[in-house]
């Protein structure tokens, strides 16, 4: 039973990470119907920005995290402007193909600039905390709390502010939003900025627990897609729920079934759901 709660805790940490990444993916898909395959690589880039903030620029951990968010938000805007906007009216596979080009570019860029070595972001919060017989590092608890705070902030932003409302309007009906005077192009850029920024925050949070490498985006992106499909493409509450479900399934699967097939679980979940329900689990009405 003790093992169970330990795995539950680990699952929550990973689930928080997945939730932040999947949220961004779901937000972009929900507002622009773009499945951004390069999203995982934005996450990777965010991890490197935070890493160099701490190790080379010698900034404190939290400003480094903020720096990563700001830089990646900028990258997100550039990506929307240069790559995805020109493809808005093209056949839908073209956006995926373009995203694949971006993904290749970013991964090779990271390889050239940063090398292929695995790195760990140094954190001031590496003390071990014991409570009720469970073991966790401070950083793990920070991940859980910070993810919660970020998700709450995003929720309030979308539901309680005017700019947030414009995003929802574009998600519901792009043409209709344009008709009532919303600058849909600006909303698209904003959504990409938020999405990439969230990915960067997730990366900076987790980078002191797991390893940073140019290929770290690859595993994450497919898990994020599995989650977004699980939660219904574009649904934000669905993405959050899906993230924790997947992370717990992986955590318990690794403990009770087999570690070498841990990564298969996400894909098995994905395939299973699409087999039973080709439009995703909680899909909004088609």
């Amino acid at each position, binding site marked *: 039973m003790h093992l169970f709660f330990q795995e539950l805790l680990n699952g929550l940490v990973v689930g928080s990470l997945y939730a932040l990444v999947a949220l961004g993916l779901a937000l972009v*898909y929900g507002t622009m*119907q773009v*499945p951004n395959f390069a999203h995982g690589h934005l996450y990777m880039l965010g991890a490197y920005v935070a890493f160099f903030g701490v190790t080379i620029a010698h900034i404190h951990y939290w400003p480094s995290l903020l720096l990563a968010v700001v830089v990646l938000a900028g990258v997100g805007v550039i990506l929307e402007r*240069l*790559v995805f906007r*020109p*493809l808005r009216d*093209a*056949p*839908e*596979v*073209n956006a*995926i*193909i*373009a995203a*694949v*080009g*971006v*993904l*290749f*570019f*970013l*991964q*090779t*860029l990271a*390889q*050239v600039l940063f090398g292929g070595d695995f790195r760990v972001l140094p954190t001031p919060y590496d003390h071990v905390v014991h409570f009720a017989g469970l073991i966790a590092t401070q950083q793990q608890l920070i991940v859980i709390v910070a993810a919660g705070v970020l998700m709450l902030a995003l929720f309030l932003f979308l539901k309680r502010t005017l700019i947030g409302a414009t995003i929802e309007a574009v998600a519901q009906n792009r043409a209709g939003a344009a008709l009532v005077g919303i600058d849909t192009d600006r909303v698209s850029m904003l959504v990409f900025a938020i999405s990439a920024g969230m990915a960067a925050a997730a990366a900076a949070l987790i980078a002191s627990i797991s390893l940073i490498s140019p290929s770290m985006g*690859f595993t994450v992106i*497919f898990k994020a*897609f*599995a989650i977004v*499909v699980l939660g219904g*493409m574009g649904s934000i509450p669905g993405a959050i729920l899906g993230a924790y479900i997947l992370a717990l399934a992986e955590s318990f699967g690794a403990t009770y079934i087999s570690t*070498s*097939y841990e*990564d*298969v679980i*996400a*894909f*098995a979940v*994905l*395939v299973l759901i*699409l*087999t039973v329900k*080709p*439009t*995703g689990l909680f899909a909004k009405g088609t």
Partner: protein
Amino acid sequence: MRRALWIVAALIALALPFLVSKSFYLQIAASAYITAIAVYGLNVILGYTGLLSLGHAAFFGIGAYGVALLETRASWPFWPALVAACAASVLLGFLVGIVSLRTRGHYFAIFTAAVGVMISIVLTNWQDLTGGNIGIVNIPPPPAIGPLSFEGDTAKYYLVVAALAFAIALTALVRRSLFGRTLIAIAGNEDLARATGIDVARAKLTAFMLSTFLAGLAGGMFATYIGNLDPGSSGLDITFEQLLYLVIGGLGTIAGPLIGTLVLVGASQLLQGVEQYRFLIFGPLLVVLVIFFPHGITGAFNRLMAARPRSHRRTTATPETEAAVS
């Protein structure tokens, strides 16, 4: 004009062993042809039918491992092993297709990507069968058919050329057949195609199986030509690379897969030493092409040909017929 170009290309391919001095270049050419066969498969499903299958390299892996395992573990000769491996690839394509083709658009891409990654993980982790990351070594070359022996580099090269010619002819025939036109109709507008009485589900499944057949064939040729095999050949990055070749060569065109593969494999060879950085150029190139030239090099060439004033030209090529005439 077009026919003449194909004949020239065939003559060059056949004469290549006498033109190059080192067998190294011959091996590069043969590997490029093998990749091109797989890219022709991708062209059937993406270029003709408009469905992005991101699990393509996994079927390449099934074909390759099928041949390699049957030859090394079960001591089958190459030819029945190749047939069985292609059959396995098509059967798996059938099973995956039945399920995945119920999804549309992005879901299909994500679904096939997940299937592809799963197959790749299984090939890596099922160590007793596949040898894990080390893979399988010493896969024997095909046995002789009568006086035809496939021992040397040149003989194996011609075998690959034959397989490539088969793939090109097959996809060209499909493109011209009623079935090919059906696929183009589905790519254009699936609902409209269904409304005109086309059995969309069946046509898509057949196209998908055809694409997995060509991927399996390419994999089988790869196993026997290279002689060793590891799970890296079935990964998602390989699918992405094949996608790159196809888009740059020309989606939905007949020359596109070959041109794209040859141009990019050639370019990679020129970049020796910095080869692993080639995606710094190829990545943005893919983005630019998909935005400005969705039909790739072949499409641009066709547009050029169509713009050239010619007295006996029958029709004016429009972007819609562009893919059709090549």
